[in-house]
Structures are given as structure tokens and as C-alpha cells.
């Protein structure tokens, strides 16, 4: 397996920035310092060499004349005087035989000169020795050897070097400080961006960056802000849609639950309605079989069985009607109907107590109505049946037929006890029975009016009731002519 060695140094961006600034400035400073030192050294050496030349000229002048006149004392005086200069180490006068005639260093006098001239001032550390010939008119009298002390020069160079390095160090410290502040300034907007990005990454898109500059950092900030904006809009949109969808689901779920409740309520009411007549039928059949009954009793109870059986059949028929209406499987058989004829047919077919009067009021030239004849008949019979139940003897029922350009309106009015306002809204509900004596006597299915409403609405018509309690009630339905 190949093994890879990787040198990985984790440095912060700021450290990297500082290090690069530092490296560049250090290199610059080193170059600067070195060149400065070299320059200084050359200058100092140059100065020393000029001094050497000056001393040479001076000595030549002083010593030559005195040598010719053999004034040794004057030479000695001059040498001592010159030797007082701090940069002169020694001065020796030497004859052509290399014997020292005079020297600032007395111990050397009358000896063979032990000192050799230095070749290059740059290679000398302490004393730079140089000889100048003493010549006049092509006659050589000997030479002067001078020892120049380079201690001062070395010290000056050292001082200059130290100073240069010192300045460099101070400069580097200053650069670090300034770089620190500048990198902070440069990095701060990036840090802010990072913070905002972190917040965005956590799903909060509400924070925005404060843009201060128009450079690339500023542009990056603007991009970041617009990204956050878009994310904000997107998530808001999504959230809204999710919320809407959830609400819709909840709504439909609620509706389904309501429907389900209605359905089970309906089933339990159906079961209740079927059980009631069955109870009488089974009960009386058993009584007929097991009890010792008189002929009169038997006839009476058999009649109850017959009536309850018929009632059961009616209830089943009503249930089927209402379930067909509710499931939308109710099929209408539309024909053209002569309304006046239909009404008289109905009045002739039902049993009307003698002391109840039925009035029929129809507008002239009554138009044909297009509807399901049997179903319409069922509605009118149901309403008249209800009216008859509530009309006391001596009362009257008025059947009224009118028409407009669009509708045919039929109303059935009785002068019974009327319907309370709060009950008016409920009478068309399934299984609703009024809290009155007549309702309790009435042993119907409790579905008559809701079936009538269903039939009229399937014809795109309206049915409603008007009543003032105590003053009778009026059931009205309207059907479109077309």
C-alpha cells in the first residue's frame, strides 16, 4: 500500500496573512540592512584611505625637508605631534638599509624594521601599515612607515551594524503590529460572512450582512445577502405551501370524519327505525301464537302487524330514496307535466277528512313543467300529508300554483299550529321530528321532507318553509321552467 506523507499545517487565515507580510518585509529589511552596512563599511574605509593619503602628504612635507637638513629633533617633534592623533598607532622613519632611524615607538629605533606593509586594508584587523618613500629630485632618502589603527573603524562599523539591525527589529515589530490591525480589518467582513453563513446553514434566513465596501468583499457580501433572500423566499413559499397543504388535508380529514360520523349515525338511526315496527310485529305475532286472545283482540293485533309491516316497507323505501339521493344515483325520468291536472289527480287519490277543506288556486294558462312526474307527485303528497296531520277539523289547506318567466312556484299552506323559528331550519334534516304531539303520533320515517328537498334540488329547484308560530305554515318550492 502506498503511504503518503503529507505535511499539513493548519494555520488560521490571519496567521498565514501575517506570516506572508512578515516574510516579505523581513527579506526586504535584511537586504536593506546588509546593503546599508556594506555601504557604511566602504564609506569608512574610503575615509580611512583619504586620511592615509593626507598623513602621507603631511609627513612627506615635514619629514623630507628635515631629513635633507638632518634636523632629527624637528622630525621627532612632528612625529610625536602626529602620533597623538588617535588613528595613528606608530610612525617610523627608515633609511635605505631598512634600519629604523626614528620611531614613535622608541624601542624600535636603530633596529631593522620588523613591520611589513599591509596589502589590503580590508584584510587587516587592527593596524594598517603603509610605507611612503621619501624622495626628492629622484634621490631616495629612505621611507616612512605609518601604522594606522583600525580599532575606531571596526568599532564604527560594528556600531553601524548593530544600529541597522536594531532599526530592522523595530521595523519588523511595527510591521507586525500594523499587519495585525490591517489583517483584522480585512478579515472582519469575512468573519461576519462566515457567521451569517453559519446562521444560514442552520436554517435561519432572516439575517443580512451589513455591506460597508464596494470591493470584491462587498460584492461577495451582496451575493451572500441575495442568496439568503432567495432562500428566505423559497423556504417561506415552501412553508406556506406545506401549511396550506396540511390545512387542506386537515380540512378534508375533518370532513371525512364528519362524513364517517354522519354515516354511522345514519346507520344507527336506520337500525333504530327498523327495529321499532319489527318489535311490534314480532311481539304481536308471538302474542297471537302463545296467548289466549279473543277474536276481537286477534283482529286488532293483526291489523297492527299489517300496519307496522306497511310502515316498515315505507321506511325501507324512504331509506333507499335518501341513500340514492345522497349517493347521486337517483335517476330522474323527465316528462312534460300538466301541473293543474297533476294537482287534481293527487287530491283525488288521497283520503281527505270531510271537515277539512282543500282550496286550489292556479294562475291562468299554466305552462307545462318539465320534471319527473312520479317524484314531483311524491313531494306534493308528502307536503299535503304533513299539512293534513297538523290541520285541525274545520281547517283548510290552500294549494297555490304560480309562474314567472323562469320558474314555476307551488305552495301548500295550512292553518295549523305553525312551526317555531328555530325548528324551521331543522325540519328538512334527516330523522328530524318536531317536539309536538302530532309528531309523536306520526309514525313515519322522519325522512319525508329531506327526500322532498333532495328531489326538488335534483330538479335544480328550491324548497323552503315559512311560518309564524300559531298562524299556520307554508311550504313552497320553485322549479325552473326549462
Amino acid at each position, binding site marked *: 500500500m502506498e503511504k503518503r506523507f503529507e505535511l499539513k499545517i493548519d494555520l488560521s487565515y490571519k496567521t498565514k496573512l501575517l506570516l506572508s507580510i512578515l516574510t516579505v518585509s523581513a527579506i526586504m529589511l535584511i537586504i536593506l540592512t546588509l546593503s546599508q552596512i556594506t555601504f557604511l563599511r566602504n564609506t569608512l574605509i574610503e575615509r580611512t584611505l583619504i586620511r592615509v593619503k593626507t598623513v602621507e602628504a603631511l609627513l612627506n612635507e615635514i619629514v623630507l625637508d628635515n631629513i635633507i637638513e638632518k634636523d632629527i629633533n624637528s622630525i621627532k617633534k612632528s612625529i610625536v605631534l602626529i602620533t597623538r592623533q588617535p588613528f595613528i598607532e606608530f610612525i617610523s622613519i627608515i633609511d635605505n638599509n631598512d634600519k629604523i632611524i626614528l620611531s614613535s615607538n622608541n624601542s624600535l629605533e636603530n633596529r631593522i624594521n620588523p613591520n611589513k606593509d599591509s596589502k589590503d586594508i580590508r584584510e587587516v584587523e587592527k593596524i594598517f601599515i603603509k610605507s611612503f618613500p621619501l624622495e626628492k629630485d629622484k634621490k631616495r632618502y629612505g621611507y616612512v612607515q605609518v601604522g594606522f589603527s583600525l580599532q575606531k573603524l571596526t568599532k564604527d562599523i560594528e556600531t553601524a551594524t548593530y544600529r541597522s539591525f536594531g532599526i530592522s527589529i523595530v521595523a519588523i515589530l511595527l510591521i507586525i503590529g500594523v499587519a495585525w490591525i490591517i489583517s483584522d480589518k480585512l478579515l472582519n467582513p469575512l468573519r461576519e460572512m462566515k457567521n451569517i453563513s453559519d446562521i444560514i446553514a442552520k436554517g435561519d434566513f432572516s439575517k443580512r450582512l451589513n455591506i460597508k465596501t464596494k470591493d470584491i468583499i462587498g460584492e461577495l457580501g451582496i451575493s451572500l445577502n441575495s442568496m439568503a433572500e432567495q432562500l428566505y423566499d423559497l423556504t417561506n413559499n415552501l412553508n406556506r405551501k406545506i401549511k396550506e397543504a396540511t390545512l387542506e388535508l386537515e380540512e378534508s380529514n375533518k370532513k371525512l370524519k364528519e362524513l364517517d360520523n354522519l354515516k354511522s349515525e345514519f346507520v344507527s338511526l336506520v337500525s333504530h327505525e327498523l327495529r321499532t315496527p319489527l318489535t311490534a310485529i314480532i311481539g*304481536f305475532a308471538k302474542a297471537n301464537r302463545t296467548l289466549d286472545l279473543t277474536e276481537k283482540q286477534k283482529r286488532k293485533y293483526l291489523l297492527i302487524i299489517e300496519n307496522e309491516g306497511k310502515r316498515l316497507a315505507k321506511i325501507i323505501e324512504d331509506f333507499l330514496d335518501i341513500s340514492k339521493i345522497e349517493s347521486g344515483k337517483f335517476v330522474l325520468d323527465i316528462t312534460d307535466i300538466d301541473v293543474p291536472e297533476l294537482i287534481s289527480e293527487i287530491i283525488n287519490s288521497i283520503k281527505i277528512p270531510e271537515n277539512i277543506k282543500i282550496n286550489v288556486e292556479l294562475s291562468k294558462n299554466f305552462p307545462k313543467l318539465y320534471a319527473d312526474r312520479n317524484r314531483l307527485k311524491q313531494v306534493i303528497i308528502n307536503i299535503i300529508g304533513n299539512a293534513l296531520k297538523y290541520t285541525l277539523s274545520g281547517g283548510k289547506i290552500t294549494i297555490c300554483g304560480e309562474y314567472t318567466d323562469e320558474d314555476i312556484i307551488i305552495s301548500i299552506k295550512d292553518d295549523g299550529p305553525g312551526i317555531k323559528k328555530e325548528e324551521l331550519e331543522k325540519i328538512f334534516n334527516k330523522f328530524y321530528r318536531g317536539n309536538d304531539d302530532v309528531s309523536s303520533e306520526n309514525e313515519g320515517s322522519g325522512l319525508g321532507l329531506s327526500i322532498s328537498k333532495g328531489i326538488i334540488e335534483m330538479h335544480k329547484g328550491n324548497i323552503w318553509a315559512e311560518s309564524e308560530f300559531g298562524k299556520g305554515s307554508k311550504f313552497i318550492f320553485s322549479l325552473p321552467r326549462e
Partner: protein
Amino acid sequence: MGNKKILVIEDQKSIVELLKLNLTINGYDVIIARDGEEGVKKVFDKYPDLIILDIKLPKSDGFQVCQQLKNNIQTKHIPIIFLSAFTQKTIVEKGKEVGGDFFVQKPFDAIELIKIIKKLL
């Protein structure tokens, strides 16, 4: 000692007839009420020994009647048999909750009903 009095609170005529026949044959006096309010009134008028109570009634329903009678010190000892075509558990449980002594479902068996009455009296 006269016959025991049984109050039948029931709105369905045919059921009233059926109960009347079966109770009379078994030697009980039968009082009839056709709605809840009339039922309560007749309890205080006649003080029956037992009540057969329908649930779906005009005016006040069987539960209300039962609660009213069981909360009254003068009438709470009177046994009440619910007789209803409702069969759901919740209705039966509510019958117990309001203080009913027995719950009989329609269609009922006359012999069974008489047995229950005898047990309660």
C-alpha cells in the same frame, strides 16, 4: 294488596299496545305516558312500582327522565327498565350512567321482560 303499577313511557302506539297486552296478562296495572314530560308528571301523580322507559321520546328524552327521577329522593327507589331500539354500547352505558336498573333492547322477548320485572319488584 292491589296489583303492582307499571308506568310505560313510550311514544310508539304499537309498542304501547304490545306492552299493555303483555303486562296486563301478567297481572300488572299499566299507566301510559307518551312523552318525557308527561312521564315525569305521571310518576309523581301515580307513584308506580316500576317504570319502562323508551329513550327516543318527544319533549325530554329517556335519559333526562331517568336522571330526574333518580336524583329525586321521592322517586329514586323506583326501578327503571330502559326499553330502546338503540343498540350501541355508548347508549347502553349512558343508560347505566344515568341510573337505569336494566337495559332491554327492541325487539324484546315478552317472557324475558316479565322475568326482569319480577326480579326488580
